């Protein structure tokens, strides 16, 4: 029963925590532009060398590619192949790739197991086979990846000084979850069995062995812990890449830009340096229009 409560709470914290995090960022004021090239938009020829619409004369009179196809293709390589790590830290790549693919397979297998349980699709042999083979594959990759990363983080001179207790804890947690996931197969459970029981008759979870229960407890803990860690980069990449790094959309084309700016300029500035607002608190509009840079503000 305790395990059921733990899992239920973890699922709620997972969804609530991630939602709060996303909403928190969505509600932040629109920042100034800070893009970085190459940006995968525009004609292919230009994308190849990292060029932008600024290369055209009178660029504001010409149509720009605002499509997401290039971004999606780029991001697919980043997510599936860990391209940046491959290009910039080859020694880390294999272990990181194994861990990420362990997580991808685990997630995918869980989704398929939930689907099979909900559809009561015991006779769907394909779904059954997917879970049967997906789960050990996911856990094996995950074990190799987390162990490899733990060793790398402890020994590699590039990483050692930046390996904190929390990095070790995160990798150990993931490693333990994958190890117990692998061992739970010999426990007679398997992911499909656990998911089916959880969804259909949670009370009978106690019939499963200690390893399977430990696996579920570790996964539950990970779910509740995840939204409070840097591992949220899994989806926050949307903000860092699409929202900042690739956001080259010009204000001249944005009918909402003036409205957003007006709201921001009404915000109060309390920075204390004398050249900002020497006369006391001021609005950003006053600070920006202060002609001498001597400090705006209402005395």
């Amino acid at each position: 029963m305790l395990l059921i409560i733990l899992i239920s709470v973890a699922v709620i914290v997972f969804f609530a925590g991630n939602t709060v995090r996303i909403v928190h960022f969505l509600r932040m004021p629109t920042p100034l532009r800070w893009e970085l090239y190459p940006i995968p938009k525009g004609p292919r020829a230009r994308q190849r060398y990292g060029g932008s619409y600024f290369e055209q004369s009178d660029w504001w009179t010409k149509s720009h590619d605002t499509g997401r196809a290039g971004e999606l293709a780029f991001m697919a390589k980043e997510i599936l192949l860990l391209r940046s790590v491959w290009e910039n830290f080859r020694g880390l790549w294999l272990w990181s790739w194994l861990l990420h693919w362990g997580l991808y397979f685990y997630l995918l297998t869980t989704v398929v197991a939930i689907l099979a349980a909900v559809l009561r699709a015991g006779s769907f042999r394909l779904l059954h086979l997917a879970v049967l083979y997906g789960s050990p594959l996911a856990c094996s990759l995950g074990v190799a990846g987390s162990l490899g990363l733990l060793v790398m983080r402890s020994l590699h001179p590039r990483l050692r000084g930046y390996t904190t207790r929390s990095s070790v804890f995160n990798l150990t947690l993931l490693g333990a979850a994958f190890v117990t996931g692998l061992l739970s197969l010999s426990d007679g459970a398997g992911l499909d069995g656990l998911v089916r029981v959880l969804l259909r008759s949670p009370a009978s979870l106690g019939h499963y062995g200690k390893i399977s229960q430990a696996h579920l407890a570790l996964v539950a803990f990970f779910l509740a812990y995840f939204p409070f860690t840097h591992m949220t980069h899994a989806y926050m990449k949307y903000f860092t890449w699409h929202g900042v790094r690739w956001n080259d959309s010009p204000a001249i084309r944005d009918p909402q830009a003036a409205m957003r700016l007006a709201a921001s300029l009404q915000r109060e500035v309390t920075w204390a340096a004398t050249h900002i607002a020497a006369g006391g608190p001021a609005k950003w509009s006053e600070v920006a229009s202060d002609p001498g840079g001597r400090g705006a503000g209402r005395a």
Partner: protein
Amino acid sequence: MRKIGDIASRTGQLTQVHNLAPLPPPYDRVEDLPARKKLKQEVLDRIDTSLDGFSALGLSRPQTPEEERKFIARFLSGLEKLLSADNNWAFLEPLNLSLDHCARCQSCVEACPIYTASGHDEVYRPTFRNEVFRRLVNQYHKSGGRALAWLKGEDIELNAATLCRLLESAYRCTLCRRCAQACPMGVDNALLTREIRKLFSMEMGIAPKEIHDKGSMLQLRTGSSTGMNARAVRDNVAFLDEEIRDQTGLTIETPWDKEGADVLLIHNAGEILAWPENPMAFAIILEAAGISWTMSSDLAGYDSVNYGLWYDDAQFARVAVRQAEAARKLKVKKIVLGECGHGHKASMVTADRLLCGDLNVPRESALVLLRDIVISGRLTLDPSRNDFPVTLHDPCNMVRMMGIVEPQREILRKICPQFREMTPHGVDNYCCGGGSGFALMSGYNFADWRFSVAGRMKLKQILNAFADCPSPAVKKYVCAPCSNCKGQFRDLFQYYGVWEKSGILYGGLAELIVNAMADIRQPFIKWEFH
């Protein structure tokens, strides 16, 4: 190996610059280089050099416990403001994204030219200062931060030494953003570095004199960071018009404050004083191509620099608004930014969402206009006049941060038969080492660091680009379409004796175009003015 917590050490210097990445001969002979500037004991007693023995700011460390307490309190007050929407709406989102999502994977470190040039000194690792800053934010800003920091083993003692070193360290990064390109998470170390600078400037009034007092403050007061007021700039440009007549026989009168012109040309005003051949070349090209253009004598309307981009949002906004107001007043069709990299980015990118309505006068790069003129055939060009080895420096702000990569290359391919690329180039280029204001900063002994560390990878690249013709008898040209980069090359080349050893000159793009103009009687590039 240095640990992150060492930044709080109350005594000693965190690192010493030695074991630098090797340069090719004859630049590998350390004994040929000027001796490093030795600071007098009285100066060393007064300023903080505990990061690496150099000082960019001349920062005085608090002398008494009470002064230290106040210093820390002001920092913490600034930290709260930096992380508030009211005070930092302009960068709050990217700041938080970069603070929260670093996986500490160190994929970015080899991309940093300073870390590489320093021989992989831990203190110059692009993640070092930002890991310190991230830990301070987690520990002192977030609720329950101190307990969590202790639990995670990520606690850092917050004392005057920590803060002095953190700030100095923020001026050991040129904001070139190569590391940000390498990050799998999209974390931007350069942005974090700029935010650290900003906190100290906007809350505590601490910034390098060269970019604040003698930079943005001077620009807002007189109209230009050079100190030239409207009258002085008009007099100086009139002198350049005479120079054009003397050198080329062309009669050109630079148009001022011409209402309704197609183009408002805004140079980095430093060009007018330090590299007058550049504005002269622009005047010759625009007149020859029949462009309707003008310059503005309004406050900041004749100087495209905006140093706030590197350290202070208020200064940034003030200058950006003044420049746009100058263009609006003249009712020009567009602003064309001269050869100034940070001026490009400040005006065309970062200020974009600050300038709405009729203040958002369209802005274009001079490289694009020059490309159109050269390719259109409006000038009679003779490439044989530029038949010497030429390589191209990509200013980070124009290229990596704006994607203006090809226009300058189209020009060079057309007019320079011996054009060759550096490796790497384009959006992967190395910074000149003078970025983010460094080219202006030489106070105390900072220049020595700038030449020996910050500019090292670029020098190596330039020498490699001309490896097939190393003799000083073969005159070579580094095309650097950015004033800041030219300032760095001027000082860097002098420090290493690059002209004497290799016969390499630096200069702008417009000069090469005029040098190739068949109807200009004598060569426009004066090699003797190296």
